[in-house]
């Protein structure tokens, strides 16, 4: 807990990281309190053709869409889907990528080579293209989007963990732990993993932004959850035919995606600086 407090204090001193943190906090609050904050919560599913494509007003803060639903309210509920996709996809990627990287990094031999070549195959194809292919094959739905993103994002974690594990193996403290008879399990989980936690956390934060962006791209291409789900990418796709007259229709979800992705990236960059234990001494020295 001391560590969490430490990280937060340090983050608060880094302006851009703090901004990122605020954006992410805002996103979380929005998603959590969507039913309370929304002015027309029922509009997620209900249609009001009579009020379609109205501009921003007191009744509809961000205007209405082609079905006459309140853009603002749908945006808030869209945040829930975005977070759901991001958290589950990154979580699943972590669950697969980190063990794969640890095993490949710890062992030297065919197993290590095999695991890393498999992850290379995934990295060779651009993530969006691969995710489109998977989502297209499985059919458009929320679980399939998450599956497609997880299946394409885990090699990034495997790469990071593999490289860090290999680098650590040359350290005397890891070597001596092995020499004292620690089992591979103990060595990797209790000694290597805590040492490489920072790059994993940073990767996860940046990966959230990246995954959300890709999810929006899939939604835009119609491969996301089917309507009437208020997914941001799909909303932008729907709004295209009404541009430039109904400018609010595309602007709202576009800005939402932009701010979310930027928030995660700034937070990730800030975390990278704060979490590196080798930089801590310099920072503490400067602060005193």
């Amino acid at each position, binding site marked *: 807990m001391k560590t969490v407090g430490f990280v937060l204090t340090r983050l608060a001193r880094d302006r851009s990281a703090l901004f990122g943190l605020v954006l992410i906090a805002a996103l979380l609050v929005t998603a959590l309190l969507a039913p309370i904050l929304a002015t027309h919560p029922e509009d997620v599913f209900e249609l009001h053709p009579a009020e379609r494509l109205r501009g921003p007003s007191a009744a509809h803060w961000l205007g209405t869409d082609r079905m006459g639903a309140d853009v603002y309210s749908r945006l808030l509920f869209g945040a829930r889907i975005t977070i759901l996709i991001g958290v589950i996809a990154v979580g699943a990627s972590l669950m697969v990528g980190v063990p794969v990287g640890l095993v490949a990094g710890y062992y*030297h031999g065919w197993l290590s080579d095999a695991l890393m070549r498999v992850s290379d195959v995934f990295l060779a194809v651009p993530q969006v293209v691969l995710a489109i292919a998977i989502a297209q094959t499985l059919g458009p739905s929320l679980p399939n989007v998450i599956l497609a993103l997880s299946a394409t994002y885990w090699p990034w974690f495997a790469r990071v963990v593999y490289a860090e594990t290999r680098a650590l193996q040359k*350290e*005397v*403290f*890891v*070597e*001596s732990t092995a*020499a*004292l*008879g*620690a*089992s591979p*399990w*103990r060595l990797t*989980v*209790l*000694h290597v993993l*805590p*040492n490489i*936690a920072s790059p994993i956390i940073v990767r996860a934060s940046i990966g959230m932004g990246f995954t959300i962006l890709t999810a929006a791209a899939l939604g835009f291409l119609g491969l996301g959850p089917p309507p009437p789900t208020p997914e941001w990418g799909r909303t932008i796709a729907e709004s295209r035919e009404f541009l430039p007259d109904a400018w609010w229709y595309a602007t709202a979800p576009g800005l939402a995606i932009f701010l979310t992705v930027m928030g995660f990236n700034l937070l990730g960059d800030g975390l990278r600086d704060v979490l590196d*234990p*080798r930089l*801590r*001494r310099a920072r503490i020295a400067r602060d005193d």
Partner: protein
Amino acid sequence: MTELLSVRGLRVDFVTDGGVAQVLDGINLDVARGEVVGLVGESGCGKTTLARAILGVLPATAARIRGGEVWFKGADLLREEAAVVNDRVRGRAITFIPQDPYGSFSPVFPVQTQIMDVMKWKSPRASIGRARPSPFSRYPRERWRADREAVLETLRAVQIPEPARALRRLPHEFSGGQRQRLMIAMALLPQPDLIIADEPTTALDVTIQAQILRLLRTLVKERGVSVLFTTHDLGTAHEICDRVVVMYAGQEMEAAPADAFFARPAHPYTRRLLASVPSPDGEIRDIPGEVPSLVNPPSGCRFHPRCEYATAECSAGRPPLRALAPRHGVRCHHPVDAPVGAEP
């Protein structure tokens, strides 16, 4: 004197891209109880390989042990079961002080966590006889307290100020010298019979070096612990050792008590080595010729191509051990009998 450690005819090869390097060529070494032995030699002569071979931690991928024996307290460590060596010897009866005080601690845990983690398995109070420690096994509360008390006491002995507070700090909050003191403390804590110190002061600056060497010597003499101390620095060897063994290209050349070693060295290589220490008058006398390749080493005595006394018999076979005085032996057909500086 009773020998605690006896290395006999140890041969170790390294498989490299350039061929098989014969890094240790039938090396012999003795360490008596309570004795501080300096293993001296140029970089690349096999000091570290010998130290690691004794500990049984040679890199598994490249190193091949071709023969020889490592006798320690009546057992040949090379033929003993791996689990037994791991449980009773490594980290317990033989401990290690590494060269680099920076990579020796994990940067993310406080020093206490790391010292107690080793003490959990290797404390003199820990029971012997587990094949493999489970990460979930408990550290008995009473023993933890006793071990921590011992840790604090040892930290005081290595002159770490405020040991209780120091234990809560992270490794980077210590200076290099302090970290090496912590390493010495960790090496002493299991109450070993032998400490292998692999150039423990090369990474430190000269004033700190002398302090740490003196401290190490005092502590091991108090406790009757033997030390095998590898170094390329003759001054360091002079400072700390009871006896010095000189290695050249994987063979031992001469072993002598420290005073005899520096006053009356018998092996031509030892004499050359001592003469090559830069003198205050600025003159540097290096040894003519080049360090031999270990892939195609010279036959017989590996120093013969560079030796002014070399004859045909030197290349024919390895010279037998010649005892000049008690515990002073030389492997040379033409040992020099004169004080240092006076060449016959």
